[in-house]
Structures are given as C-alpha cells and as structure tokens.
C-alpha cells in the first residue's frame, strides 16, 4: 500500500500533528550532543513547512509522540481497548458506571518553556477539541456518550463527566487520546464564554444551532492557527521544518526527560514506500514506519549492518467484499463457493508476502483477537473454507448455476458468470492480490477481471456509489470490536446510528453499497440482525461483549459479506548501529510512533 496500513487503519489515538516554518534562523544548528540524532520517517501525514504547529491540522507540524502527546497512550491490547500507558496523565479513575473519569496529571509535567502543565491546560485542550468536533467532542443534539463537563479539581487533577444519556464505551479512550495543548498558546484564541456555548449547543432549539455554528466557525479559524514558536509538553520541541524534513530537539523540561535517549530527532518526509526502503538500505534511518514490503526488498534491507526486523500484531485485515446488489452475489451459496475456490495462501504470497498471514477463518476480526474474545473452541467450530473445488461446484449448482462444456460457469439466465474485481491504484498489495484472485477464479471457470481505479479517492467514491461488484476493503479494525464489525455492518452495509437510534437503509441508498440482507438465519442461532448486534458492541462493557461477538463471528463466517484474505502483520525495520534497546517483538507499543517508544524508555544511544 502506498500509505501504510498503519496510517489508514491503525492507532485510533493517532491525532495528526502540526508545526510551522519555525526557527529559520540563519545560523548553523549547534553541534550534536551525546544523545545524537535519531532519524526516522513520519508516516501519519506529509511534512509541510507552511502548516501551523497544530495537532488538528491535516499536515500540521505537531508530531504525535514527539512534540505533542496525549493524556494516555493506547496499548494495542487484543481485547481491552481501554488499556493505556500513562503519558501526561499519571493515573486515572473511572466511576463504576463509566460516566466519570478523574485524571491525575504527572506532578512534574512541564511545558518546553518551563511552566508547569496544569488542569487549566487540560480544560483548554478539551475546549479546542470541541471546536474541531469528532468522537466525544461532537456537539450534536442527542449524540450518545458525548463529553458533558470538564471540572478542575485542583491544579493537577481534572474530572471529565459524560453527558447524561446513553453510555458509550469509547469514553475513556477518547478522553485519554486528547492532545494536551498549552493554555498560554490556545487560551487567548477562545472566547471567555466558550463553555457556555458548548452547553447551549447541546440543545435542539435555534439558539443551540447558533451556538453550534459559532463553535464550528471558531474551529475553522483555529485549524489554521499555530504559535510562532513551539510550546510542547512532549519529549521534543520543534526546531525547524523544511519541505523534506522536520528537526526536533529534546525538551529539557519533559517530565520524563532522563528516559529520552536521543538529543535530536530528524523526521523525514516521504512520497512513497520505495523511498523509505531506499533510506533503510542506505542505513540512513534508525527506525522506519510500517510499509508493505516485498520479499526481495526485505532481504536487501536485512543485509544492511545493524538492520533488524520487529514484528507484532496488526489489528487489520484485507478482505474481498461483495456488493450483493449484483447477482449472483445476493446468493449466499455463491459467496461461499467463491470462498472455497480462492486459495488464500497464494493470494497472500503475492499480495502481502512479508506483511501478512493468510487468514484462517472469516469472522470479521483478526485471528488472534477472535481467539482471545471467544476462545479457540468457538473459533475452531467456524468454517475455514479451505480450497475445495467439489464443495464449490456443489454450492454453485445449488445456487442455480450450470457448468458449460468448456468449464465456464453459467448464470441461471444463461449468461456466463463474470465480474470485475476493483482495486485502487497505489495499494500495490491489493493490486497484486486482486490480479491473483482474478487469475485463480478464471482458472476455475469464472472469468474475473481485476480493474483498478485511478486512485483511492475515486475508489472510495465509486465503491460507495455501488459501481463495483466486488472490491478490496480493510476490515477487522481493532482493538474495539465495535470498530471491527462496523466495517461490515455499519454505514457501508446500510446501518447507521443517529442520535442514539439505529436505522437501516436499503441497498444502494445512503452509502449502503454492500447491500447485505438486514437479517439472516444462521444455523443454531436463529435470525440475527448483525447491524443491531454491532451497535450493541459500542454500548456494552468490555466484559459483557463475548456473546454478541460469538454471534457476529458466526454470522460473518456463514453469510460472508466478504472473504477475509489475510491479516496484516506489523513489520518495523530498525537499525541498531547507533541506538539500542528497541521494543521487543509483539510489544503492545509497536504501532505507536518511535517518539512514544522513547517516552516508554526504549531507544537509547549505543555506548
């Protein structure tokens, strides 16, 4: 993939970072100190010298983990999406009903200008988050689980209260994922009566709408705002940015400064995976973000002295998804037959040889997460759809198709069974995998052609408009199971929640391009509505979710709205020539940026 899977799918906490044309002084930077310069590539977004130092701006010069840091850093835990490493928040307490979170800040957390980080800063950060909307900061009348109030308990303690109404189990991680912003910088940008406006905006009358409009207008102004000089609570401060890199220096006031090894960080811009591979082979990088790397390049990278591969869990899968408006995909037998016809290990070998594992089952979760949630016993009861031509033929015949003398399958209406499999340009693993699936099915008598869209933008638009019969789609986004199943039984399949109510739109309307049945009968479970089950997952406490997940896994395995092709593996390359003590394989921190690793005490200069 052009953009790494991480950037698109992973790290819910990845808030985009910011910065400006800061520090363009015509003097040479001072000589390197003992910690040295750590060189990496920032994968979340392109580096743009014209952008402000603003974590909300699309290409802002705030780099997550380096010069902007959240309250807590989310672990990549298989089943519990509420597990975090402490960051600016030293500890937190959640009330029994989950509606109140009390956060204690690090006692010696300081900004890079030397002033302490206080509860006031956190309240300002929440206010700025409100102007940008999103997650719990959405001021939508009746929206579920939104943040209601921020109360300052004392200088280092702050309390977040959920708005009255339905519970949302994303509340904790949404609060902890909040970027910590300095009141000295952002406070003057907010009107004095800002919090009154937030309160007013939650209503449903005209005054509320006016208040919401005001906040949106403020948000539009704030997103282009950034201080001339970086004020950071993170381990680094932005020193300078040019079109090809950002240079950050260590923040001496960072609460955990003695843990931070490097004196400087150099984040390189990149325009494609090939560039990152080249930097790695040149030995220029100490760490690199995930890229879908072909085997021949992996071998080349590992030949470089000091080069090392760290692998870990990636909570995302690639799937072949059907638009069931196109006959004969409306027949479950046909979808099952295709699952029997496609050899997934061959697809993975072509598409994602080093950054994927063929999926063992289709259940809408990554294999490890499924096992952790519902247990090996339940998982092994699922149909693995191992390649089996005979079963596929039987199923196709059952669906009314016939096999012609030349081995080609004919639809009940006498037409040959052919379809186009769509993939976007630039996602090289999908393009290669799509071609392979097409080849496999063509050999089996179903003439499939893999076609590509000009780019991801066109792909997104056209897939949503229902123009493709089948295409590739990222599913199983973890760790929240709600997020994982919403990929299959959310807006794209007709279910959307508005104002705490779930509604289902028919195929072809309101973005429903998968066009699956609203309910289906699954042997042993009766008639299920997967959209409703998925919605329940957003409300259920984590420890009560298992039964729902079992139902959804079985439903997905039986109904196959898509065929899970491979589960991604998070592969990171590092170079140990200059630094040592990198995180181990399978570290829960693996999908965070290198800056977060440093906060956790990893990455120390070699003596």
């Amino acid at each position, binding site marked *: 993939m052009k953009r790494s899977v991480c950037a698109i799918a992973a790290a819910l906490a990845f808030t985009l970072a910011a910065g400006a044309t800061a520090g363009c002084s015509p003097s040479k930077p001072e000589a390197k100190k003992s910690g040295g310069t750590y060189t990496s590539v920032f994968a979340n977004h392109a580096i743009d010298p014209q952008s402000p130092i603003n974590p909300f701006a699309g290409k802002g010069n705030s780099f997550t983990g380096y010069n902007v840091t959240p309250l807590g850093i989310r672990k990549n835990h298989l089943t519990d999406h509420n597990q975090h490493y402490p960051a600016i928040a030293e500890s937190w307490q959640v009330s029994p009903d989950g509606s109140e979170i009390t956060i204690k800040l690090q006692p010696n957390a300081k900004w890079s200008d030397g002033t302490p980080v206080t509860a006031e800063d956190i309240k300002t950060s929440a206010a700025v988050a409100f102007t940008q909307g999103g997650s719990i900061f959405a001021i939508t009348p009746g929206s579920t689980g939104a943040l209601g109030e921020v109360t300052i308990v004392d200088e280092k303690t702050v309390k977040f209260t959920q708005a009255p109404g339905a519970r949302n189990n994303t509340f904790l991680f949404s609060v902890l994922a909040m970027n910590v912003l300095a009141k000295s910088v952002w406070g003057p940008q907010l009107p004095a009566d800002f919090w009154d406006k937030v309160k007013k905006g939650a209503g449903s009358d005209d005054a509320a709408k006016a208040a919401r409009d005001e906040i949106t207008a403020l948000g539009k102004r704030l997103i282009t705002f950034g201080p001339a000089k970086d004020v950071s609570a993170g381990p680094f401060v932005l020193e300078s940015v040019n079109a090809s890199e950002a240079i950050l220096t260590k923040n001496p006031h960072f609460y955990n400064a003695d843990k931070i090894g490097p004196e400087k960080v150099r984040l390189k811009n990149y325009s494609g995976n090939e560039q990152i591979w*080249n930097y790695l082979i040149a030995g220029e990088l100490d760490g690199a973000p995930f890229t879908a790397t072909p085997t021949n390049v992996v071998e*080349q990278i590992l030949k470089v002295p000091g080069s090392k591969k760290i692998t870990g869990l990636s909570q995302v899968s690639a799937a072949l998804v059907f638009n069931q408006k196109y006959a004969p995909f409306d027949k479950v037998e046909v979808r099952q037959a295709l699952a029997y016809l496609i050899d997934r290990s061959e697809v993975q070998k072509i598409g994602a040889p080093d950054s994927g594992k063929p999926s063992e089952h289709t259940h809408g979760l990554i294999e490890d997460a499924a096992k952790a949630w519902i247990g090996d016993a339940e998982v092994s009861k699922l149909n693995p759809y191992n390649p089996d031509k005979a079963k596929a033929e039987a199923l196709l015949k059952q669906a009314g198709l016939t096999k012609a003398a030349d081995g080609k399958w004919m639809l009940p209406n006498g037409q040959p069974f052919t379809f186009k499999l769509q993939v976007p340009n630039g996602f090289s693993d999908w393009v290669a995998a799509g071609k392979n699936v097409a080849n496999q099915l063509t050999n089996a008598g179903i003439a499939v052609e893999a076609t590509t869209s000009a780019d991801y933008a066109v792909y997104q638009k056209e897939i949503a408009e229902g123009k493709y019969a089948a295409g590739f789609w990222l599913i199983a986004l973890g760790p929240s199971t709600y997020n994982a199943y919403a990929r299959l039984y959310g807006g794209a399949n007709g279910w959307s929640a508005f104002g705490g109510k779930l509604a289902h739109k028919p195929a072809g309307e309101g973005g429903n391009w998968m066009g699956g049945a609203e309910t289906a009968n699954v042997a042993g479970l009766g008639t299920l509505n997967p959209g409703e089950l998925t919605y329940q997952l957003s409300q259920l406490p984590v420890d009560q979710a298992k039964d729902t997940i079992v139902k959804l896994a079985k439903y997905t395995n039986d109904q196959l709205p898509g065929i899970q092709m491979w589960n991604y593996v998070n592969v990171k390359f590092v170079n140990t020539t200059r630094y040592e003590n990198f995180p181990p394989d399978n570290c829960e921190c693996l999908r965070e940026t290198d800056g977060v690793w440093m906060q956790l005490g990893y990455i120390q200069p070699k003596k």
Partner: protein
Amino acid sequence: MSNNVRRRFWRGVWAALKRRPSRIAGLVIVLLFTFMAIAGSWFYPDRLPYDVDNIYAPISWKHPLSTDFEGVDVLALVITGTRGVLLVAAAAGLVTMFVGTAAGLYAGYRRGAPDSVLMRIADFVLTVPGFPLLIVLTTAIDVGTWWKMALVLGLIGWGGLARAVRSQTLSLRERGFIEAARGLGLPTRHIVVKQLLPNIAPYIATNLLLAVTAYIYAQVGLYFLGVLPLDTSNWGVMLNAAVFQSGALISPDALPYLLAPLGAILLLTLGVVLIVDALEEIFNPRLRER
C-alpha cells in the same frame, strides 16, 4: 505532377536510407515494434500465465528477461504491452495530423482573419504546458480507454504541426506553380489536395513521427506516475510497478523487470531517431555531406 512528386519523394527516402546502414537498422527496429504491436499478442494467451514459485526468476531460456512480482514472464509483458502503447500513439498521431494539417493549411492558404485566429489558438495550445495539463485532465475525465486517451493526446499536441504546415503553405503559395494553378482558375480543393498537400507531406511525415514518439512517452509517463489505472499492459505500468512497488532500483532481483521496459523505450527511440536522421537529410539538403 503529384505522382511525380510522390515518386521522387520515395526515391529520395530510399536513397537516404541506403546511404547509411544505421538508417536501415532504424527502419528495421521501427518495423519490429510495429510487428510486435500488431502480432505480439497472438503468440500469448489472453491471460499471461503466472507462477508464484518463480517470482523474479533468474534469467533463462524460459524467462529471457526474468519474471515480475507474480512470476509472469517479463518478455511477454514487454511484447504484449507494445500494442496498447503504439495503438494510442498512432491514433493520437492521426488526430494531430488531421487537426494540425487542416488548421495549418487553412490558415496559410486563407490568411487574414482565419489565419490570425487559428494561429492564436495554436500558440495557446503550444504554450500551455502539455504534460501538467494531461495530468489534470486525467483526474477529471476518464481516459482509460485507448481512443479517449488518443483524442486527448492528439488535441493537446497539434499546435506545432499546424504552425509548420502554415509556414510551408505560406511559402508555397507564392511559388510559381500554385500561382499558375490559381491563374488557370482551378478550384481551391484541387489546388490544396493536388498541389499543396503533396509538397507539404514530407514535413507532415517528419513532424508526425516525432509527435507519435512524444505521445508514446507521454502515455508511458502517465502510467509511470500512476495517475492512470494500472490494469492494462503497458510499459509504463511495468515501470511503475518496478520502481515504486518492486523496489527495482534497490533490489538486484527485480532489476530486469525495470530494465526491460526501459530497454524497449530506448530501442524504439533509437529506431525513430535513425529514421528521422534520414528524413531530415531529405528535407534539409544542406545537411547532406559534401
């Protein structure tokens, strides 16, 4: 008269070609590519066979140019890719030829207001940076099908030909035989088709050959940058996959996959250059050796 011109022209071409063996080689190369474009895909099945256990295979008789990321023979990819490349370029060349010649002839023959209007338009087409425009166009209109691509390319590139044809027409117009034909009261159609065209034809031919080459590269370039859907067989698709996805610049395994389309482009360029060298000599006799 026109027959005479034509015969003289072909004899001149042959004489010029014969003068240097390299020019014959050029002709052979261009003919070879034309043959590959027409007949290349007859030698291969509709879908090239792939072999996942033979990715970037070492060079052998079976795979003289190695294999690609899914084990498809690279030589087969180059050969089957020729058709798409040349078809679009040739069709675009035809569009350019028609539009450019018509505009140039009309402007040069009519002069006056139509001339200045047409030449303003031609200047405009010449000035607007063609390739950036192409990129912008590809996002707004679907140029995935060959004839649309050809139309767009042809319409972007006719300015130069129109200018060349116009200036030739202007100078021919004052020559004795055209004056005489007009004096005799021959219809304009006759003068243009029988007198002017045969004399301008060589210039059109040279310009056309260069235009077609430019179109080949523009098209391959668009695929290389990845702004067009990559599902066709085209050298540009190979280049894109080799450089940006297979890491051919950094991994020796995938190098043949990069070098094959590069080599094809270089060879074709060489062929065209050698032929243009001959054509130039015919039309610019001062360059002829003394």
